[in-house]
């Protein structure tokens, strides 16, 4: 049970974050490096949070984020000349939702490694399909994009960030969230308790892809040119997964923290140690996995529960597996 003081802690933290983000251009120049850096961090935060919506409770490890991100990018590149900005972004999200829902309905009966392999293949499939389309139908590989000011892209990502936070929160608290967790533990028992397992999985996979599509459609506008290789780059699949694992998935703050630290670390390493960047990055990841099997969240929760005693103290580790 939370005490009254603690109950208000999360909302206060959220409002502080909102003020900080919305006010950011007041402290720094609106086209500055800081704005671009924070936009980039927000992109990864949203990707990691969206990934955790589906993969966190169900344990299905999806490597498809790059496919949904890329669909958003392309939707935006094609439509941004003819439609208003918010509509373009929304269509990017919806296109990814539809793709994920259809693909999910057909393949979410695959489990474990098979599902992961499939999602990995999906990124390649969609990328090559777009490439083929461009070569054979439109006759040009890649396309020019109507770029927006960095500050516009930044505000777009702020809105999407709060939307995905709200979305995750509502799902976790609803009967849908309970169903997702039951699916993660035993699909058979969930089905015999009345949960329409395949539908719940496909819809959530779609919702998670929706936010990735929004992100792709928004981030597209910071480029002036895109092609299948940049839009469907496999790093948009691996990074969110690594970040969510690094942060943890039991609480909403965990992927946010994981993605933030991770992208700052990446930024720091690429600028300070351009030659040893991947080496240091790899080592860091190894150390984290060996010493913090439940990510940052595991360490934080242990620290928060210190001295409280009781079974919770020991139980945390087991709970998160």
């Amino acid at each position, binding site marked *: 049970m939370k005490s009254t003081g603690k109950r208000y802690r999360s909302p206060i933290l959220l409002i502080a974050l909102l003020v900080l983000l919305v006010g950011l251009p007041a402290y720094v120049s609106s086209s500055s490096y800081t704005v671009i850096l924070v936009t980039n961090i927000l992109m990864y935060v949203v990707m990691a949070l969206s990934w955790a919506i589906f993969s966190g409770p169900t344990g299905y490890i999806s490597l498809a984020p790059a496919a949904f991100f890329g669909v958003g990018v392309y939707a935006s590149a094609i439509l941004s000349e003819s439609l208003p900005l918010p509509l373009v972004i929304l269509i990017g999200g919806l296109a990814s939702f539809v793709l994920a829902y259809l693909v999910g309905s057909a393949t979410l009966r695959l489990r474990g490694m098979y599902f992961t392999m499939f999602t990995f293949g999906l990124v390649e499939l969609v990328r090559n399909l777009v490439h083929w389309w461009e070569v054979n139908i439109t006759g040009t590989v890649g396309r020019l994009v109507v770029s927006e000011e960095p500050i516009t892209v930044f505000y777009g990502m702020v809105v999407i960030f709060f939307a995905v936070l709200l979305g995750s929160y509502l799902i976790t608290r609803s*009967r849908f969230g309970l169903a997702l967790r*039951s699916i993660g533990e035993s699909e*058979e028992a*969930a089905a*015999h308790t*009345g949960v329409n397992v395949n539908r719940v999985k496909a819809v959530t996979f779609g919702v998670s892809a929706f936010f990735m599509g929004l992100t792709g459609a928004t981030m597209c506008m910071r480029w002036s040119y895109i092609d299948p290789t940049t839009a469907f780059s496999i790093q948009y699949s691996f990074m969110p997964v690594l970040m969510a694992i690094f942060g943890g998935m039991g609480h909403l703050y965990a992927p946010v923290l994981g993605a933030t630290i991770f992208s700052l670390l990446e930024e720091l390493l690429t600028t300070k140690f351009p030659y040893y960047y991947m080496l240091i990055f790899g080592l860091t990841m190894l150390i984290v996995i060996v010493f913090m099997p439940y990510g940052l969240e595991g360490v934080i929760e242990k620290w928060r529960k210190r001295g409280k005693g009781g079974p919770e103290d020991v*139980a945390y580790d087991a709970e998160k597996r």
Partner: protein
Amino acid sequence: MNILEVEGLNKHFGGLAATSAVDFHVEAGEIVGLIGPNGAGKTTVFNLVSGAILPDSGVVRFKGTSIAGLKPHQIARMGIARTFQSVKIFSKMSVSENVLLGHLFGRAKGSVISDPARGETEEILDFVGLAGLKEARAMDLILANQKRLEVARALATHPDLLLLDELMAGLTPTEVAKAMELVKSIRERGVTIVMIEHVMKAIMSICDRIIVLHHGEKIAEGTPQEVVQNRTVIEVYLGE
């Protein structure tokens, strides 16, 4: 009235006939025992009735409606709940969340996590004797309580028919006695019960009728007294 009618149920796994031409019926309000040696096809019958697997041929009617071909969640929402031979609780969820899931997705299908939903969850936990453990994580319960929790989750879906797969297996004699009381009180709630069981004492004392399966075929059916005196049954269990 027959709540469940099974006619000519066939299911083959490769060359093995898991059930062949099984016929039986269950009347509303009964407690029916399903017994037989290991591999007799008892759990297969449960899997076929609850929609976990599809029959090769045969008819399953629940309250007069054919349910063959329906998905497990559809059958659960029509009012057939089940437990599993190897306990399948949601071990990382709390005891009350396990039951809440049944309430939210079963026949009652409450759409939100509301106070009435929590109230009913507590009533069911109280009924099965887990009232003091509702905040515990399911994995921390002892086996007997995990089995009670599985029953509670099944009851939360508001079933008319409950399929219990070896509820008593692995329990101490005291726990078996308590489980027998539980089964009887479930019937008093108006739920019809079919139970697979190896604990003979339990079967003999609480079942109205017993169906005996052997190598996928029904070899006997009747009251406990009739079944223990049946020559075929004695041969199957004790040898000739």
